[in-house]
């Protein structure tokens, strides 16, 4: 099934200068009881975004009207913990299309790429500069060119190349889906299944 394509994204960003943001923070477990993929954005960062009484926490960045955009810029080791894909659905459903950090947890990275959310790994010092810049100037934009694999900070002109698996890049650029690819390999898979170890 075709997915949304990702070619170039130019946008303001939302800064989240915290490290080790785990998937329990991105979407707490008590919101995982749904059986569809939609609507998780409402509970993105739920316990940071809302106070106990359900009011918005004005100190949290998603509630600060000066910040907005389709790029989330977060501290290192983003997305650790649970394998819940709901974390990626929540980020995507909220409206983000890319997350920029200096380090991502493995499963989160896979889940993102499988859902059209681009994880962009950049050097830690540059991440620090972007976070500082955006804090001072929320209108600062970032341009992510997936084809060229370049992230550029528009106001300062600073840019960096980022890496992505060539196959995954192709999938994102064209909006292709892994499962379609594998379904087309059916004969090869059936052949393989036959030469399994005998006791399985």
């Amino acid at each position, binding site marked *: 099934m075709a997915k949304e394509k990702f070619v170039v994204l130019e946008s303001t960003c939302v800064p989240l200068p915290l490290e080790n943001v785990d998937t329990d923070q991105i979407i707490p477990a008590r919101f995982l009881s749904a059986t569809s993929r939609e609507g998780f954005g409402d509970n993105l960062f739920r316990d940071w975004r809302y106070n106990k009484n359900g009011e918005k926490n004005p100190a949290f960045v998603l509630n600060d009207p000066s910040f907005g955009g389709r790029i989330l810029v977060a501290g290192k080791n983003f997305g650790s913990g649970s394998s819940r894909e709901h974390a990626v659905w929540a980020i995507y459903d909220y409206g983000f299309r890319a997350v920029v950090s200096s380090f991502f947890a493995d499963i989160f990275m*896979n889940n993102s790429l499988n859902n059209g959310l681009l994880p962009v790994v950049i050097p830690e010092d540059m991440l620090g500069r972007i976070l500082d810049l955006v804090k001072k100037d929320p209108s600062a934009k970032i341009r992510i060119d997936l084809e060229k694999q370049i992230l550029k900070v528009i106001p300062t002109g600073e840019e960096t190349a980022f890496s992505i698996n060539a196959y995954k890049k192709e999938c994102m650029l064209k909006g292709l889906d892994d499962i379609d690819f*594998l379904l087309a390999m059916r004969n*090869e898979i059936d052949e393989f299944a036959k030469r399994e170890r005998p006791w399985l």
Partner: protein
Amino acid sequence: MKETLFEKIWNSHVVRSINEGPDVLFIDRHYIHEVTSPQAFNGLRARGVKVLHPEKTLATADHNTPTRDQHLAIRDELSRNQVAKLAENCRENGIELYGLNHEKNGIVHVIGPELGYTLPGMTIVCGDSHTSTHGAFGTIAFGIGTSEVEMVLATQCIMQPRPRKMRISVNGKTGRGVTAKDIVMYIISRISTGGATGYFVEFSGSAIRDLSMEARMTVCNMSIEMGARGGLIAPDETTFSYLRSLSRLNINGDTEAAIASWKSLKSDEGAVFDKELEFDAALIKPMITYGTNPGMGMGIDELIPSSDTAGGNASSSFLKSLGYMGFKPSMKLLGHPVDYVFLGSCTNGRIEDFRAFASIIKGRKKASGVTALIVPGSKRVEEQMKREGLTSIYEEAGFEVRQPGCSSCLAMNEDKIPEGKYAVSTSNRNFEGRQGPGARTLLASPLTAAAAAVTGVISDPRELIND
């Protein structure tokens, strides 16, 4: 070519290598549960495809199920619906389901091994990060997201970039009161929660060899908490005698022939790892965490660090974490009051864990200020506790034994730790709000949890062990 254990298993499962892309890996066993599978089945329906190998798939309901009155309908409507959806999806696709109230029900990573579904040399996936548990048998087992669950249901394959290889050796003898949980928590406290990201870890060394199968599962279970894609341990006589002891192995044919071939599942002498780490078991103490990620751990009699040296966290994240816990840098934890104790989860919810906890509470009483959640990992464990007389030891000491499930490990059901309360937990994650909004989790072994449960404060289990 000299190969690591990981390479042997991985290479024998590659259906196709995509140029500059991931490998297509054949999956021998797929475990599913109610929380991360419904959207995958919806996806299959939308594509108009059926489950390719239902006989390689096994389902259980564990994440959001209640731990009391399981014979009654689940009270929470969304959870009830999710469990019902799982049953419906399994029925429609011919998948074996050990649902709520089934005699084989339990936490997915507890029942897979105890029912003989997890076998050496396999590739195993599940929409749950602690799938790494099964690595204790010498399998490549790892957690996947829901899109990947759909992929495996549809094609019995998964696309995965090949991880790098790490070996962590723990040599020497552990001291009194030091368990597998302490070994793995110690490693994570040294290398941080991102220390093994991008790697698949093989655990080896004499201290690992000395562990029982259940203890090895505890170690592999938490390999995800060091960021690893998974962890594994080469099968040996301990593994084989465990497998022989099971009432049934889900294999076709001769167990001994299978075991003979599993003996080749080890890293070749001289095989190359991308990274090797070594630890001395004698230096490990009973561990406890003081912060909000599993890397923020220390010996129980130590002081909280004055700044985050090991984890390398920026001081703002370190202080935010201590603030959440209500702790200060350089503070001592021994003697700090505890409100809750949780014994259970796929990390420490097996029979040996309940025996260890019982060894300390026996002849003592639960401290009056402590609320205890004692949750077996499966029906089998629950039954065995009764048979061994453990249940009565718990009851005599003032503890209620609940019914199996994930329970307070992720608090999707009613077993939530209230805001601001301190819980010594044998589970695997101490993230903010993991055990309920505002809950403060201190991860530890079953022995340390038992010590807290009978004293009401954080205590060194070495002082309470009944020799």
